């Protein structure tokens, strides 16, 4: 390794974020190099003889041919250890808070502060003792990272097949670089401290993949009810601008019942990151009441930050997610937006003068996208205790002109299992979340139905199926209305329309910024479905006996249904009882009236 450092290459050519260099014999693909007098970090992305091509993670203005290129011999890696949560990094894991302290509010080049504090003490509690046999992934002890993640596992490195602990420290306070254990293997002695490095483009190893069977509860009615995502699942949110992709991502990162959230703001707006940074510390975790930032890691590489670092940002986020998965936690990764990442890929590819594929994207776009989503999943992680962990990935896609036939959307749809199609027309009607219920789908629905039915309510899947059918019928009836006018509909068809409207406006719509409605518990979700379905069943009986729809619609109870979103999760049980009673009574008296006539 020492020899590598002494090898210095020379810049030949600079084109935007791409630098060509020579005298680089022996360098390997994706090796990190330091470019120019400013020591800018870059990565080798092409080798030909002693010439290499480097993508530079910082603005390259001022670099000139003739300046040196230093090799490091290592691939681009992230630092893993306690203290990652509640932080904000850029695409190559530079801590933005420290960067701000060191160089002010504009990001300066060539600065690489420590990712994790070297002086902060962590309270380490060993779980293993001397002479215990251990294997890769076994947890040697825990540190209390923060109140939301009290058990941050310090794990046996992945390269240890089998070993025996020859030394382990007592419970106490240590800094990350302190040695906490020593493991003797067949051929060497491995010293373990609390940090590790891991190359971002290489998936962290697992024992085996397991079947997906648990839903990721998001507190969003349309998702939990109609298009659920599983823990360890993958979902895409494509939508034109203004359809609410980012708000959706924010909602999911706030409310999804994962242990750790990694939010990658990839080539999006600076002010949106500012919003997350200001809002999350104030938001409370629904189960513990602690600030949500404690379980969150933010990766911010906003649109005017260097493009190569944007390309790296989603891998950086994924590696951090895998690290917490390896401790046995459920992690959710939000990437907003993968289109910006793909554009970074395209830009670099075009600077390399590669043969373009569809719409100028490189031919390997599709394989890169599938590789990324493949890192999601539910698995038994390394370690002898059979822990399970998962990484769920939710990627926003920003198709140009909201046209879903473009390459990034299409390549994504080939690999993800859940498709939440955001609809510009719905967004313009201020119907949020603007998920189109006719085109969206979830391939986990069938698998998860059994979970909902056995663990939650036996008629859950029947209710969601009813909703989907009604919405489908509405679409067909709309066709008729468009052709011949609303008068052509029978009373029972009008009831279907009315029911569908209630489903849309009172159930599917959800106010992200309303305190009571932003998070909808499964229980409230279920009871809302119940009430609506009850309304429909009862109304159908009335219509069949000849009661006109207008009479049903003017009942207080049917009108009050529309206020149910605004009833809090806690008060909903009571509301439900009252509401059902009111519906039953009013409808019964309508029935009586008609019978008297």
């Amino acid at each position, binding site marked *: 390794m020492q020899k590598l450092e002494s090898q210095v290459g020379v810049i030949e050519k600079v084109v935007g974020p791409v630098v060509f260099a020579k005298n680089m014999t022996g360098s390997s693909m994706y090796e990190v190099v330091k470019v120019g007098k400013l020591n800018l970090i870059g990565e080798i992305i092409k080798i030909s003889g002693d010439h290499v091509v480097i993508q530079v993670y910082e603005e390259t*203005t001022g670099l*000139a041919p003739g300046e040196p290129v230093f090799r490091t011999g290592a691939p681009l890696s992230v630092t893993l250890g306690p203290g990652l949560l509640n932080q904000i990094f850029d695409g190559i894991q530079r801590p933005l808070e420290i960067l701000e302290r060191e160089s002010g*509010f504009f990001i300066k080049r060539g600065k690489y502060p420590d990712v994790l504090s070297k002086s902060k003490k962590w309270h380490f509690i060993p779980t293993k003792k001397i002479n215990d046999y251990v294997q890769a992934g076994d947890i040697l002890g825990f540190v209390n990272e923060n109140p939301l993640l009290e058990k941050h596992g310090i794990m046996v490195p992945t390269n240890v097949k089998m070993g025996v602990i020859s030394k382990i420290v007592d419970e106490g306070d240590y800094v990350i670089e302190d040695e906490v254990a020593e493991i003797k293997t067949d051929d060497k002695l491995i010293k373990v401290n609390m940090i590790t490095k891991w190359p971002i483009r290489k998936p962290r190893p697992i024992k085996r993949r397991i079947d997906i069977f648990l839903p990721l509860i998001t507190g969003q009615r349309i998702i939990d009810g109609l298009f659920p995502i599983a823990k360890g699942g993958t979902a895409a949110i494509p939508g*034109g601008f*203004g359809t609410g992709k980012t708000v959706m991502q924010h909602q999911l990162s706030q409310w999804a019942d994962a242990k750790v959230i990694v939010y990658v703001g990839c080539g999006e707006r600076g002010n949106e990151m500012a919003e997350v*940074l200001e809002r999350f510390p104030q938001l409370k975790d629904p189960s513990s009441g602690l600030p949500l930032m404690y379980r969150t890691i933010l990766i911010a590489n906003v*649109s*005017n930050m260097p493009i190569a670092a944007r390309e790296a940002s989603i891998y950086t986020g994924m590696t951090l997610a895998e690290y917490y998965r390896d401790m046995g936690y459920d992690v959710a990764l939000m990437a907003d937006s993968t289109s910006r990442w793909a554009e970074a890929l395209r*830009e670099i590819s075009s600077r390399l003068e590669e043969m373009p594929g569809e719409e100028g994207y490189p031919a390997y776009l599709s394989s890169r996208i599938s590789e990324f989503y493949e890192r999601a999943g539910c698995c038994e992680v390394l370690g002898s205790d059979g822990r399970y962990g998962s990484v769920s990935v939710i990627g926003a896609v920003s198709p140009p002109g909201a046209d879903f036939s473009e390459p990034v959307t299409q390549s994504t749809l080939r690999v993800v299992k859940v498709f939440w199609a955001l609809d510009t027309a719905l967004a313009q009607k201020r119907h949020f979340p603007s998920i189109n219920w006719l085109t969206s789908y979830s391939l986990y629905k069938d698998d998860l139905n059994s979970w909902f039915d056995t663990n939650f309510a036996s008629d859950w899947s029947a209710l969601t199926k009813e909703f989907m059918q009604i919405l489908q019928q509405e679409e067909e009836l709309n066709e008729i209305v468009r052709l011949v006018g609303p008068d052509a509909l029978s009373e029972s068809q009008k009831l279907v329309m009315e029911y569908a409207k209630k489903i849309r406006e009172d159930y599917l719509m959800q106010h992200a910024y309303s305190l009571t409605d932003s998070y909808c518990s499964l229980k409230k979700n279920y009871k809302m479905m119940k009430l609506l379905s009850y309304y429909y069943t009862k109304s159908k009986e009335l219509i069949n006996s000849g009661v006109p729809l207008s009479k049903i619609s003017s009942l207080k109870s049917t009108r009050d249904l529309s206020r149910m979103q605004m009833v809090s999760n806690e008060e909903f049980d009571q509301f439900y009882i009252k509401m059902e009673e009111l519906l039953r009574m009013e409808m019964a008296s309508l029935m009586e009236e008609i019978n008297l006539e």
Partner: protein
Amino acid sequence: MSKHPTITKDFSTVTAISGPLLFVQKTQNISYGEYVELLSSDGVLRRGQVLETSFEMAIIQVFEGTSGLNLKDTVVRFTGEPISLPVSSDAIGRTFDGSGKIIDGGPPIIPKEKLDVNGSPINPKSRAYPTDFIQTGISAIDGMNTLSRGQKLPLFSGNGLPHNDIAAQIARQAKTKRTEEKFLLVFAALGITADEARFFRKSFEESGTLNRSILFMNLADDPPIERILVPRLALTTAEYLAFEEDYHVLVIITDMTNYCEALREISAAKEEVPGRRGYPGYMYTDLATIYERAGRIHGKKGSITQMPILTMPNDDITHPIPDLTGYITEGQIIVDRGLHRRGIYPPIDVLPSLSRLMKEAIGSNKTRDDHREVSDQLYYTYAEGRSLRDLVAVIGEEALSERDHLYLHAAEMFEREFVSQGRYEERSVEETLDIGWRLLSNFPESELKRISPSTIKKYLPKSTLGV
């Protein structure tokens, strides 16, 4: 802003000229992005920037264009520094051309600092989220798509639509509730006609805005490649004044479509692989380096609010220019041809318009506590009315129910009374909301689903005004 003494290097080894690009051979140690001066036999000093550099060759984009240059006599002077702009608060009230030269005949300005025009990205951690309401006095914006300090909100318009009037009206009227703060307008014109330039100037003069404005003018007959530079000059000035001198700066850039055309021209000359409609694949990133230079910073008093104007080619919102812009900016205000034809000014179509930062900019301490609910309800009623309008076109008005007629009528009234206002009419946000309530009072309370009963009680006018 290099601290090293400037070493200039002269080369006369130009081997090719293609469009706005110049190819210089046998260059050495030329750094990427550096500023270049070109001396030629016609005596005109041209400026350029290095787009690509290697041992053998440097490619230079020439801001003034290459017409009149030849291979033999052109001397290329590399300065070793990025393009920088002298900045000072003395620039306030002054007019510059697209290269930063004073063109108002006034005295020169003594710069306080010289700044790299490309700026640096603001650390996301340092950003303060925009929450201060800016009152533009235009109901369609204040009421339905509120602008806030530090936001970037573009006007999407089309050829022949009155976007300039709207921009000028906003420039005249924009204010916040805290009047003691320092407000400033930076105006960047990119390839607008001399008539338009005169219109803006006159409008600023009349309203007294000119002495708190800085104008950068690149007109239709000025060099097109210079348009790459103009927004950067404007924003560098704005950044200095906002974050060093505590001004609240509103930056109006018109017309961003011309900027993108210039970008495409350079890309084509470099023979790059084109993206959609011939625009380069990096246009999103390039536009972001302009639009993202808006915002507020923790601990700084000033702010930059951006209002870029762009004309959508063929009114097509899916065209790459508005499309990529919409993905970066925090919403958009849509100027609609249909409304314009029906004589409504400002012809702002509130349905596809959007202000992403509205929710934080409105409410009891900022505008009024009923703002969100009123705007939601108006939005709903207008959208309902508009979709009924489409239905009427197919099946005729007779088939509609009474409720439908109500909505149809409300949509009409919304356009005539709420959206429509005079070019010099400045409405306070309270007036705007009151007009909204007047329209809503035509509906039975049961239709006002987006408003809570308590808000209805507090604000709904008791007697229904016949309209």
